[in-house]
């Protein structure tokens, strides 16, 4: 009996995990909570990582941004157009949120700089081998270049987006994305001794 039920389920009812992201978004628009749950589970870890690395490694803020991102999806599912790939669209929304946050921080930073000038720590002078330390040094180095280079770097090497997709997400010409990646890698090789030996330019 249980087997028959299972077969019936297989024939007549597709499970949410079988649906594409765009199909799930259509279901979310008509109030399907299970579809939302599925989509959240598909993207929560990736978006968490993206926000974490983009916003300066704060768990609390990352969770807040993740929640805000998916709240946008709940409140206005119609803002997604199925003519675009969902993944690209989601990252572009996340990237815009990070941009706004950086803008807000810059305003605050200007005020703080005026109040007190703090000496900057040099994370890059020592030679290291541990992958975790390399990662930390990479992101510390990318801080010097700004969020545009960091986002291009993350999208390209962590998420595996093509140059064209990165350009779509960041709303930039492909040439600009290529040059940002080039300068990011060049800076990394220049600052990190370990990478300097590993990477050829």
């Amino acid at each position, binding site marked *: 009996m249980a087997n028959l039920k299972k077969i019936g389920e297989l024939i007549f009812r597709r499970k949410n995990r079988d649906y594409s992201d765009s199909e799930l978004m259509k279901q979310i628009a008509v*109030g399907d*909570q299970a579809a*939302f*749950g599925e989509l*959240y589970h598909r993207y*929560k*870890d990736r978006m*968490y*990582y993206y926000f*974490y*690395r983009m916003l300066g*490694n704060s*768990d609390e803020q*990352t*969770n807040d941004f*993740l*929640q805000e991102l*998916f*709240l946008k999806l*709940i*409140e206005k599912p119609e803002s997604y157009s199925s003519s675009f790939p969902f993944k690209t669209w989601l990252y572009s929304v996340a990237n815009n949120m990070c941009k706004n946050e950086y803008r807000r921080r810059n305003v605050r930073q200007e005020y703080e700089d005026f109040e007190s000038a703090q000496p900057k720590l040099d994370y890059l002078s020592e030679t290291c081998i541990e*992958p*975790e330390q*390399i*990662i930390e040094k*990479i992101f510390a180095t990318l801080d010097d270049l700004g969020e545009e280079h960091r986002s291009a*770097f*993350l999208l390209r*090497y*962590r998420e*595996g987006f093509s140059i064209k997709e990165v350009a779509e997400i960041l709303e930039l010409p492909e040439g600009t994305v290529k040059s940002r990646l080039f300068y990011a*890698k060049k800076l990394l090789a220049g600052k990190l001794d370990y*990478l300097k030996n*590993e*990477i*050829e330019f």
Partner: protein
Amino acid sequence: MNRKNQDQLFTELLRNDFVGKPDQSVEDRLMYSFMLKNSRSKLRQNSFSSFLGWIFSVQGLGLKTGLVSVVLFFSLFNNQLNFESSGTIGLDSISNQRTLLADSAQFIQSLDSIHKDSLY
């Protein structure tokens, strides 16, 4: 090391990077928000608010004007269109019906006449 290896190195480094997982409370809050939104929209579906909103909005003015014109046309010309072909239109005093009301004075008068009759 060629360009491919250079890209591979960054890809490997970043893909093996683990920064933790999102808080479970985020998912709980999102699910609650979704449930709230659903209940709000269901409440709207069961009410006339959206229909009334449409009626008093500027949307579909042409359609609304058309509908009002049709209703007005039928309400104004309905009496003129609805007449019997065999009937004649005019006043006929014979067919006038008077409403008969009970008048207690008449009852008293008739009772008096009964009493008078009894005397005789």
